[in-house]
């Protein structure tokens, strides 16, 4: 086992003192005002999740599980960054279940189908914020389903 302390070229170049608070605050504003046509990404995710309804539990779909995980993870990662905190909140719940699920069973499929429907509703109605009409119902329903799953399978 060899240990080494390589020269810290980054430190040598930037020196000391940190980044001024004003710049960090300005960067927060850059994020808050970030605009992207994120609804097209949501629609694509819904399209990609369409295959979920065709899944047969008799098939070995472990590899596909990773594909669905990536879709959900991407929605969780980018929703809030582009003005859709509701998408991030929903996706976070589903990702927690996908990350621990050991078997792709009917309960898991139900959660994914409900998730897909929720995303579709959000995209169709441009429900952006958590306080949008019906948003809380969607989040609560999905949260409850995820909670039941985690409880049932003792995670």
């Amino acid at each position, binding site marked *: 086992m060899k240990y080494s302390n390589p020269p810290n070229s980054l430190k040598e170049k*930037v020196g000391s003192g940190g980044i001024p608070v004003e710049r960090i605050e300005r960067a927060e504003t*850059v994020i808050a005002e970030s605009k992207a046509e994120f609804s097209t990404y949501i629609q694509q995710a819904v399209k990609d999740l369409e295959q979920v309804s065709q899944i047969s539990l008799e098939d070995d779909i472990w590899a596909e599980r990773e594909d669905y995980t990536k879709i959900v993870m991407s929605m969780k990662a980018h929703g809030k960054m582009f003005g859709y905190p509701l998408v991030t909140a929903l996706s976070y719940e589903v990702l927690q279940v996908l990350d621990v699920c050991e078997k792709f069973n009917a309960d898991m499929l139900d959660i994914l189908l409900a998730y897909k429907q929720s995303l579709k509703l959000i995209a169709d109605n441009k429900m952006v914020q958590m306080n949008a009409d019906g948003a809380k119902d969607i989040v609560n329903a999905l949260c409850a389903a995820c909670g039941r799953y985690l409880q049932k399978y003792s995670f």
Partner: protein
Amino acid sequence: MSYTLDRASVLVVEDMVPMAMLTKRILHTFGFKDVYVAHDAETGFELFQKHAPDLVIADWIMGDMSGLDLVKLIRRDPLSKNSYVPVILMTGFSHKLRVMQARDIGVSEFLVKPFTAKDMYARILQAIEKPRQFVDNGDFFGPDRRRKRVVQAYDGPMRRYDDTGE
């Protein structure tokens, strides 16, 4: 006095174009001047070899070649321009097993998306001020996976080989 970030360069590798652009804007707002952007890991490695950036910020999940594959290349390819460069991995994953997987490849810092500017600054600050020593044990080459914890209450003698003796 503050950091002279305009002297350092950063490579951003992110396949979601708006996210790559947003990351670049954040870095420019922080004060970095030279920010190179690639939308796939292959191009990312080409830019890495061409510009030898001082910091790499890469997304995990990208097309055929992932951010982890890129980290492997940077750390282990004999032709790599700088195997020791700090790499911040951005991802929506936050499960412990995923974090451990990234750490075992040689990632320096982990930035969970969605993030705030403050979160990103914290990771950059860590890379600048508290880089971890590198370990090479044959199977693994990268920053030490154990982050040293300073026990504030301990005032006894320092006996570890890497203690500074202060």
